């Protein structure tokens, strides 16, 4: 009769041999699983990248879609705005941490939700105030600098957010893909000094504009861009223009 493995020193060697074989097989199996997982991860990542690139135009043009996309990213915790770990793939690409991403989402949130009333331009201090309120932190915790940096890191996503200097050290954030011409920037700056109201006469007197130039700039903002509102019951000037992004709103 032949005993499995036999007896003696040779049998001991043979047993060792089979142990090794099993160990090899087992590590091969787990390696296959890891590889499989890697492949799935790569596929997921490329699908996400594909989605981002194919819908880039849409994301850029349609604010509601953009908002929804960014929300989705946050809720599944994969991509740009709230990656689950530091130094992930998106973080490498964009170079910021989770905190900055979240701030970015909240900036988008405030810009989108106030767009109807301000035409897509919001004053920096107002934005900082509203973002702070959203985060439930006291004023001063979030600075203009944080907001500027967050907006910069949103750039690779093609969101089209931009910080504009309107003079006198005042900044505004634009969330619509629209060129703001020089005259409009001046109108914004002047309106900001007056609590949001602006009339042709102010631009003539303080900026030396002709009446036609002032009227053209204001009417364009009113009719073409929806960046200001008209008040036809102004007791002094008859017709005045109100720039909602420069008006002080108390909630």
């Amino acid at each position: 009769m032949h005993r499995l493995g036999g007896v003696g020193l040779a049998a001991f060697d043979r047993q060792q041999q089979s142990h090794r074989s099993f160990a090899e097989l087992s590590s091969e199996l787990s390696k296959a699983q890891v590889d499989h997982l890697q492949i799935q991860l790569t596929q997921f990542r490329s699908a996400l990248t594909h989605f981002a690139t194919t819908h880039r135009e849409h994301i850029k043009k349609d604010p509601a879609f953009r908002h929804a996309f960014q929300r989705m990213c946050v809720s599944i915790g994969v991509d740009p705005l709230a990656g689950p770990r530091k130094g992930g793939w998106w973080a490498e690409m964009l170079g910021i941490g989770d905190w900055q991403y979240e701030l970015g989402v909240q900036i988008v949130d405030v810009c989108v939700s106030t767009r109807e009333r301000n035409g897509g331009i919001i004053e920096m201090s107002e934005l900082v105030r509203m973002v702070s309120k959203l985060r439930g932190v006291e004023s001063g915790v979030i600075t203009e600098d944080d907001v500027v940096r967050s907006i910069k890191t949103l750039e690779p996503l093609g969101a089209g957010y931009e910080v504009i200097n309107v003079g006198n050290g005042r900044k505004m954030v634009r969330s619509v893909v629209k060129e703001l011409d020089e005259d409009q920037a001046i109108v914004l700056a002047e309106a900001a000094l007056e609590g949001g109201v602006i009339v042709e006469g102010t631009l003539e007197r303080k900026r030396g504009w002709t009446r036609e130039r002032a009227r053209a700039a204001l009417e364009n903002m009113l009719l073409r861009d929806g960046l200001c509102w008209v008040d036809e019951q102004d007791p002094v000037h008859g017709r005045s223009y109100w720039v909602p992004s420069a008006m002080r709103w108390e909630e």
Partner: protein
Amino acid sequence: MALSSFTTPSGFLLPSIHSAPPFFTEQPNPRTQAQFTAQWTRLILTYARHRKLFMLRVEDAEVAGGDWDEILRNERINRRILPSHLSSLLDTMVASEQAAFEPPKQSRAAIIYWRTPEEWADALHAWAVATGQLNTILTFYEIADPPVPSPLSGIPIPLLRRAVTFLVKSNRAQIISVADGEGVRLFAAK
């Protein structure tokens, strides 16, 4: 100057947009005006509900002293809504079934639907159940002007008629002609 909300003498909280002068001008930019119209509509509906006001007339914007002054005017900034603006707001509200011209075939006065006719139907039925008036004949005037104030006190007859129509359709009411006008008999829900 800051634009803030404001509580009127009747206890209604006006939104901050109501203290913005351009809110009282019809905006030439259609997108802006659509936004303003939505805000005005919401304001009119919530104020009507607050004061239990049923009728809004273009003339409420023409002469001061009416029930709607607190929202149609803002004395603090010296602005008021113009009749033509109010008229187009009424058109929009009627088109979206948030109001109905009354009498029909004119556009200067409307019933404001701060409750829809369906909601009024449910309110009427609930009131009849709560006060034990099922299966008895009630005239429209008894419902609109009951001796004990009810949620339906003051309801305009045309609106009441529409509400009753809904109850008839769902077999919860029957319209009955009575000596001094119309009446209705309400049944328990089947």
